């Protein structure tokens, strides 16, 4: 990063230059945070290959990483729309747990899994809508509202699950969440699919530009005729729905849901998203591809420590340092500086 310190703050263009070729545009995505996080991923892979050996990229190890990163990826990509629109949603971890608990308990009660999945997703949407109502309609601080929702939903999990939760092994869901297609984890493929779609929406569609515009400067967006309210309501609902889906997938993967499932997940996900170029304090920045890479870096390091049987406490320390380094690099490159 030798030359970056002289780089002037250059705001991301709101609308892509239509004359740019597709190839250039894709490459353009890799400039900025996505570029440096790609480099970090390469370094991670190299360290893994050197320390662990070729087995680091063996199918079984890719499977382990894929299975563990896929659900946070799906939840994180959906939540990233809220970040992009400038409204951080801290309740996603508790919503993952709450979604999982509802899904697990109702399936165990004998209801049809598809119906229950639908109910769970609707609950996620309602939670997102509630957040949005208080934040957008009443103008409350997103951090405060979603922190309240985090507490409330965790409380509900504990109210519902008071002793050992029932076990619900749903075979098709287990196969999807733990299985592989052609040697590649199925769920990670789905997660990457979701990421690519989201990246497409963000960088290529009018909807994506609107979200970025609202997150970047809501007044300017409003003057440009964009409905700030609508964008933020939908973004928060997408975030809630993503967390509900994450909960369902966890039940598929783990066969049950305790009342602590998803505790602290929001900070793990946001730490990874921030490493990937998002900001929890500023809207309009970040790309789902960066989020994917950020999660992969953290998962890759976790896995190196795991397969070398290293004390996992060091992981949090390493993630903390990488997070600080990432926001520092972003700041030096011309991102937000705090005075």
């Amino acid at each position, binding site marked *: 990063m030798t*030359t970056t310190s002289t780089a002037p703050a250059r705001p991301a263009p709101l609308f892509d230059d239509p004359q740019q070729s597709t190839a250039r545009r894709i490459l353009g995505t890799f400039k900025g945070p996505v570029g440096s996080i790609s*480099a970090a991923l390469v370094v991670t892979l190299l360290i893994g290959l050197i320390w662990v050996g070729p087995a680091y*990229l*063996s199918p079984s190890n890719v499977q382990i990483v894929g299975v563990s990163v896929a659900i946070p990826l799906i939840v994180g990509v959906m939540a990233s729309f809220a970040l992009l629109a400038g409204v951080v949603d801290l309740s996603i971890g508790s919503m993952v747990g709450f979604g999982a608990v509802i899904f697990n308990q109702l399936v165990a009660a004998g209801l049809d899994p598809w119906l229950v999945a639908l109910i769970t997703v609707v609950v996620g949407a309602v939670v997102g809508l509630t957040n949005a109502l208080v934040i957008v309609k009443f103008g409350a601080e997103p951090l405060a509202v979603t922190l309240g929702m985090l507490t409330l939903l965790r409380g509900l999990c*504990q109210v519902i699950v008071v002793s*050992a*939760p029932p076990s619900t092994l749903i075979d098709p869901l287990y196969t999807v969440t733990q299985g592989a297609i052609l040697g590649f984890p199925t769920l990670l493929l789905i997660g990457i699919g979701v990421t690519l779609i989201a990246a497409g929406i963000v960088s290529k569609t009018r909807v994506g530009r609107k979200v970025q515009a609202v997150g970047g400067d809501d007044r300017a967006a409003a003057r440009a005729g964009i409905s700030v309210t609508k964008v933020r309501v939908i973004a928060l609902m997408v975030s809630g729905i993503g967390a509900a889906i994450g909960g369902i997938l966890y039940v598929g*993967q783990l066969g*049950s849901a*305790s009342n602590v499932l998803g505790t602290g997940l929001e900070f793990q996900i946001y730490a990874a998203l921030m490493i990937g170029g998002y900001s929890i304090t500023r809207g309009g920045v970040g790309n789902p591809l960066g989020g994917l890479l950020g999660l992969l870096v953290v998962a890759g390091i976790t896995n190196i420590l795991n397969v070398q049987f290293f004390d996992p406490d060091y992981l949090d320390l390493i993630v903390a340092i990488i997070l600080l380094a990432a926001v520092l690099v972003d700041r030096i490159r011309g991102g937000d500086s705090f005075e």
Partner: protein
Amino acid sequence: MTHSTTRGRLARLGLIGLAAGLALTGCSTVGSTAGGDSGATGAADDGTFTVGFATGGQPDADWQQLQGDVAQGLAEQRGWDFVELSNDNSEATATKNADIFIQKGVDVVMMFNGQPSANPVIAKKYEAAGIPVVTFDIAQPGWYFVGVDNAAAGTEGGTSLGELAKEKWDCKVDLVISAEGTAAGQINTWRTGNARDAVKKTCPDIPEGNYVSYEADGNLTTSLANAPGVFAAHPDAKNILVVGLNDQAVVGALQAATQLGRDGSIMGWGQDGGLITGDNVDPNLVGSVMYFLEGYPASAFEIADAIEAGDAPAVKDTGDDAAVSVKPCPVTAEEAASIPSIEDRVSQLASAPKGSTEYDLFCKA
């Protein structure tokens, strides 16, 4: 525009690296299919017997980390390989750990899983991989159960406390508080519930309305935060008994009683012996049931010895019919005073003859 080109180069470098990584994945896929099913981490299965050990990872319980330390010592004694992971008190991590141990190709797995809701899935994985599992304290069909008979431990603790109440207060008890840890599931029902039932049995005349429960979450800080309201809500209760999931939960309630000036006549009987030894025992913790949790690996390694010798014992997987039943050791506070602290017990166990359990070494020695 120099910075921009540099960044472009960096980005391209990143892309190339990614591509290389993906290509390598492909190659190793081919390699591994050709090479058969050998231990995937290439950490070459050199034939040495390998123990995979997963600690509970609940930061409130230091015995969980000590279990790992004890196990490591026992493995070194035998010249075995030893690999350790932490379940991090998370069902998702515990499930991932199973995949890692299977990939490593360990010969036996030992674990404490404090969030057992995913145990059926974990069991399915180990069964498919043909790896025997020793579980501590939380039973799962198909796994060797090493642990205390939790149901008996609860009953013995409750009975001892009931006897004390009979002797001191003639069973005139105004309040029986259960400091629950519902996340522990069945274990909580056995320890806390059975202790409560045993008090009921010993002192049958305590009115049903005098029994109350609250969530202590198995740790002192949470218990101390939630208990004050319980005492305040029963302002007239004088003679108070406390049972609970573990010593931390019970001591949290006793501390709250002290803060509210309700420690005039209160007696708590803990479980697991976590806070009954050492210099700073709560004066109202009149006893506990010691299981010598940190010593469980000694029992697990007896099973591992048999497995290593190619003579795996039949799986006994319930608390009633356990592979190794750790005898609960109910102790009063006075008896506990002569029992060494947890660190000293660990070091003494390490130098004790093979096959010794902590129960033999320390219970009412």
